[in-house]
């Protein structure tokens, strides 16, 4: 077997020589030899123990003309990493106008239908070394998680971030009449309560998702982050005017049952399609009737995020049902189970209905209040109509869609 030779020059062990040696030895098979020429007697004396320490063997040491030293190292039998050898270079994924889109991650690696529940944090395209501790992920099936446009939605989420401290014209919310401010504060607190639930539900699944599905992790993390900002912005809006409000027990009861759903697709239906879907109409209403620019901006920005969340839910449920039609019954079952737990809830809390009515009326004058009440009634109808449209888009037939819409909590989320 021929011996390769490298010149160490002024490099010493601990000062970069080991990097040069590792690179040179990588290309040599076990039993092959590398001759290291160094002008340093000290380095020549240290090379044998370095070699042994990394599994090789110094087989000869000799002075060479010119005052240098040659140390011949035989490569040992051990691989540095307990894994199959890395394959040679390959073209990287495509770029779109210089941007690396998340969807193009999959130019390198397919979405595994089933991921190893014990696998570790192995980024796409990387080879896992054996001997890592075993994890116990519980969400390991692509079809139980996936939405075909999850990468695109993740991309949009990154691009649509906003700042609840600075992007809202907070000054505009000051100085409203007390009765208006109290109504707004109550509606904002109600929305913030719901945003908490919308944060905890995806967060509860996030840490169970197998790392082989990074888009799902990115998506759920963005979802959680969005909701954290929604909690922030609606809490801030409730506080800014100085009027107190209630966190209502009936709202809590409804949201509590949402967190009980431990099936990912069931939760996607209940939270994303039905709950956040219904909230799209509520946020539009708030935006339209907001008495100030701060409330309007908060509702508009949150609405933009919720559109993504609802889109994910519809896309996921549609794919889930299409992949396995038996899942339709299971999903309806999730909604029915929740509804049976909500028999104590009779309808939307009067405090919320009143708050929305005052916001829509903008006044306590009877004529204005009557108009406000009409607007709220129309909102409820719009919510129902749109819920059914979304359920149809998610793949349910007309009868099931009506049934699911009827089962939906009167508490909106």
């Amino acid at each position: 077997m021929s011996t390769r030779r490298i010149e160490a020059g002024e490099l010493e062990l601990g000062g970069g020589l080991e990097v040069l040696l590792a690179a040179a030895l990588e290309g040599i098979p076990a039993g092959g030899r590398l001759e290291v020429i160094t002008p340093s007697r000290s380095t020549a004396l240290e090379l044998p123990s370095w070699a042994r320490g990394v599994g090789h063997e110094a087989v000869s040491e000799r002075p060479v003309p010119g005052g240098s030293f040659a140390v011949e190292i035989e490569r040992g039998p051990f691989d540095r990493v307990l894994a199959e050898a890395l394959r040679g270079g390959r073209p990287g994924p495509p770029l779109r106008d210089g941007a690396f889109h998340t969807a193009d991650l999959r130019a390198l690696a397919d979405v595994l239908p089933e991921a190893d529940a014990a696998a570790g944090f192995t980024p796409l395209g990387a080879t896992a070394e054996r001997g890592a501790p075993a994890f116990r992920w519980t969400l390991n099936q692509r079809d139980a998680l996936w939405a075909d446009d999850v990468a695109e939605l993740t991309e949009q989420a990154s691009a649509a971030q906003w700042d609840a401290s600075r992007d809202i014209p907070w000054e505009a919310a000051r100085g409203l009449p007390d009765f208006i401010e109290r109504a707004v504060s109550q509606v904002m607190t109600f929305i913030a309560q719901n945003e908490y639930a919308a944060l905890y539900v995806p967060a509860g699944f996030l840490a169970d998702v197998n790392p082989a599905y990074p888009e799902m992790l990115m998506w759920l993390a963005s979802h959680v982050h969005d909701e954290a900002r929604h909690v922030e912005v609606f809490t801030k809006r409730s506080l800014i005017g100085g009027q107190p409000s209630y966190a209502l027990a009936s709202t809590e009861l409804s949201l509590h049952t949402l967190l009980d759903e431990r099936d990912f697709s069931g939760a996607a239906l209940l939270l994303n399609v039905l709950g956040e879907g219904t909230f799209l109409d509520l946020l539009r209403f708030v935006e339209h009737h907001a008495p100030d620019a701060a409330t309007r901006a908060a509702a508009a920005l949150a609405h933009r995020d919720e559109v993504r969340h609802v889109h994910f839910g519809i896309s996921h449920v549609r794919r889930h049902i299409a992949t396995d039609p038996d899942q339709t019954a299971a999903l309806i079952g999730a909604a029915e189970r929740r509804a049976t737990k909500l028999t104590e809830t009779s309808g939307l809390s009067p405090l919320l209905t009143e708050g929305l009515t005052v916001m829509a009326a903008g006044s306590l004058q009877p004529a204005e209040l009557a108009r406000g009440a009409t607007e709220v009634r129309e909102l409820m109808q719009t919510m129902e109509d749109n819920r059914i449209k979304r359920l149809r888009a998610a793949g349910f037939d007309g009868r099931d869609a009506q049934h699911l819409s009827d089962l939906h909590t009167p508490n909106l989320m």
Partner: protein
Amino acid sequence: MSRAQADVRVGAVAYHPRIVTIWEKFLEHFEREGVCTDYILYSNYERLVEAVLAGDVEVGWNTNTAFVALEQLLGSEARILGMRDIDAQFATLIVTRRGEAFGEVGELAGKRLALGSRDSGHAAILPLHYLGEQGLEAASECELVRFDTDLGKHGDTGDSELRVIRAVAEGAADAGALGEPTLAAFRGDRVPAVSGLEVAWRSPTYYHCNFTALPSLDDALAQRWEAALMAMSYDDDRMRQAMDLEGVKRWLPGDRAGYGSLAAAMREA
């Protein structure tokens, strides 16, 4: 079988918390190999040697110093069941500040020579012995700067050798002795003090640690245990981390060829 009824109890010195990690993993390996083994930790090698001699453990994971002491107390040859690959080719280095390396050991006369713990074969006993063989009675001809830290651990912790290289780097000594693998580890860890040092001298090679048993250990059991040890593979992903912690890539059968110098040095002392 429960570990409490293990066929082989191995005594080891707890010079670092990682010893527990290492032996818990090693026991899993011995169990897979069908030789039920347990470990018992001691705080120093003197206790471990006593335990082997008293039959409290069947096998002691000894430093070379502990092995030689055990044979001296035993008055006859002990049985060696194996050693690490690095134990078979150990050497001591003497380092100086860069540009101050000596050519012949005689040039160290009158200089300050830093040594590690006095019970360390590689950092104190053997450098004095080999320098003597090459004509330098360092104990009388040099000013010895001793760092007797962690006595009883026979230099395993590396603490005294860290003090040796710092002493040389800071000018409190002109030269210092330490084990080859220790310097390699300091270089690998980018320990600042070693960057300005060079190796001036390397000792002949000698053996370091081994698994020691009394001659009375049942032959068949000894062979089974040694075979199980030899079967431990660095390519086994369950064992690689523990083997890295123990500093071994391959276990070698034990033999006596590399302990003569230390035995002579300890007799002289």
